[in-house]
């Protein structure tokens, strides 16, 4: 049975894929489907509860929460993908070098991984962002720069086993250069677990971004993000439940989607790993 037929037999995985695709669609179509301007202040409709006019109610400036959440979807998607892109790039490069060359290079890189893993990553991210002036770009960069360690270990392990295989030894015997062997021959064979790890990574990047924005050091208002809408939810606790309920559900569903998709891909790639 091939990858796709295994994947599509897994109902949870398909559910994850549907959620992720829906998020892409929503982000692409936001300007067309959003009923209001995300920053249009409406003083007559402050903290209005959900109704036909305002599906998810309004916030303390009378802005439409549904509209702001649609825009927030795009932001979390962007942060998730760019952060994971950075982490994957670093992880693949360091892991490949570490696994392929071994020796002291490997030792130094692995020691560095151990050191980075000792930091409560949220502490490190907060510390850096606080000094950098919070902006979407900085958040993406910092999340990426603090989450490459898992992928490095993964790629290294793949390289350790793949570099002894016959096809690699044959390439070496024919005099292929190290970069050629690494990128053209070994890496493509090591990408499957990276893909899984990257998908799960998007989930955690989305969670971290929302937590940072919630604490006020992530995406800055007036730019809407699910996290900073939740900050308003905290200040109106017991008054406007819709400001905390809907954005939280959106985060939950998004993260769930990426987690299900990632696990689904893993199971479909290698059914033996299935839990």
């Amino acid at each position, binding site marked *: 049975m091939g990858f796709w037929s295994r994947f599509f037999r897994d109902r949870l995985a398909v559910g994850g894929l549907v959620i992720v695709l829906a998020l892409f669609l929503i982000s692409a179509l936001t300007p067309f489907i959003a009923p209001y301007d995300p920053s249009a202040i409406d003083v007559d409709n402050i903290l209005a509860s959900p109704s036909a006019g305002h599906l998810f109610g309004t916030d303390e400036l009378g802005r439409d929460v549904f509209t702001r959440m649609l825009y927030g979807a795009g932001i979390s998607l962007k942060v998730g993908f760019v952060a994971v892109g950075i982490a994957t790039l670093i992880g693949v490069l360091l892991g490949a070098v570490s696994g392929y060359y071994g020796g002291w290079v490997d030792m130094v890189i692995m020691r560095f991984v151990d050191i980075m893993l000792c930091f409560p990553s949220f*502490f490190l991210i907060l*510390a850096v962002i606080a000094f950098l002036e919070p902006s979407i770009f900085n958040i993406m960069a910092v999340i990426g720069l603090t989450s490459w360690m898992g992928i490095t270990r993964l790629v290294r392990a793949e390289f350790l086993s793949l570099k002894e295989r016959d096809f690699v030894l044959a390439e070496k015997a024919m005099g292929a250069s190290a970069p050629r062997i690494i990128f053209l021959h070994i890496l493509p064979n090591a990408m499957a677990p990276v893909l899984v790890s990257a998908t799960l990574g998007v989930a955690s990047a989305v969670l971290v971004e929302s937590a940072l924005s919630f604490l006020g050091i992530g995406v800055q208002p007036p730019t809407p993000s699910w996290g900073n809408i939740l900050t308003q939810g905290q200040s109106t606790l017991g008054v406007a439940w819709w400001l905390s309920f809907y954005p939280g559900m959106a985060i939950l569903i998004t993260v769930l989607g990426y987690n299900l998709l990632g696990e689904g891909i893993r199971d479909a790639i290698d059914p033996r790993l299935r839990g």
Partner: protein
Amino acid sequence: MLRYLLKRLAILVPTFIGITIVCFAVIHLAPGEPTSMQAELNPKITPEAIEQLKRHYGLDQPVHIRYLVWVKNLAKLDFGTSISADARPVWDKIKERLPITISINVASMIIIFLVSIPLGVISAVRRGSLLDRSITVFVFIGFSVPGFWLALICMDFLGVRLMWLPISGIHSQGYEHLGPFARALDLARHLALPVLISAFGSLAGMSRYMRSSMLEIIRQDYILTARAKGLSERAVIYRHAMRNALLPVITILGLSVPGLIGGSVIFESIFSIPGLGKLFYDGIMMRDYNLIMGSLTIGAVLTLLGNLIADIAYSVADPRIRAS
């Protein structure tokens, strides 16, 4: 055992030095200085006064000198003084906040352990059953739910609407006048939500891990042997399988320490708990260099200790580790 322990401790040293370098680099290479914060707060400040402030905090020295000075002081647990108005030594501030954060995290870990192990064992033993599938769904949701949101919802529901639990701080008003029993109860009521919610996130991962560890063990030959010699299913599962399945979980529990400590920033801020996380968050808001570096270092050291304890526990439980 002793040799293993010494070897393990020897690795700690370079790791610790690495930690201090990373801490230092992160904070000192980033733009933005504590003096700029003070300058922003006070528009009348002169350039000369800023220079004087910089000299006062040693910021006019080159980076490597500042690092060496910092490490030398670190050996004496001297992280310098806080830049905030009280100007107290950073270590004093951290010291008084540590017990509460450590207690919350230890309590969370105990709960994680007590709940996730049975969940994992049950879903492995009844693999594919309705119960297993429900636990799987619960696990996925647990993985995905943002902890701070869960905290908000619980505060709203249990705290504000039903008024069952207090939602901020660790003591009620008039705490000093309570008897010892009432005090303990008061503290427990304040900590219930933060502890449960910070446990919730790791619970999912841990029970998933326990489940696959268990499934792995059940396939082993010695389990077949145990069944073949006619042991009851109970004895097979709990005496033979579970004990072995627990081993790798010890390591994972150690690995979950940084997550818990990192999470304490969020939960302590939400619930206004005066712990290390809240101290760190306030320090960041004030760009309190010394305080941030101190907390970051202590956070990493706690992680290092957590991993060390897990490693030692693992080697005590599994002699194969010591031998290799």
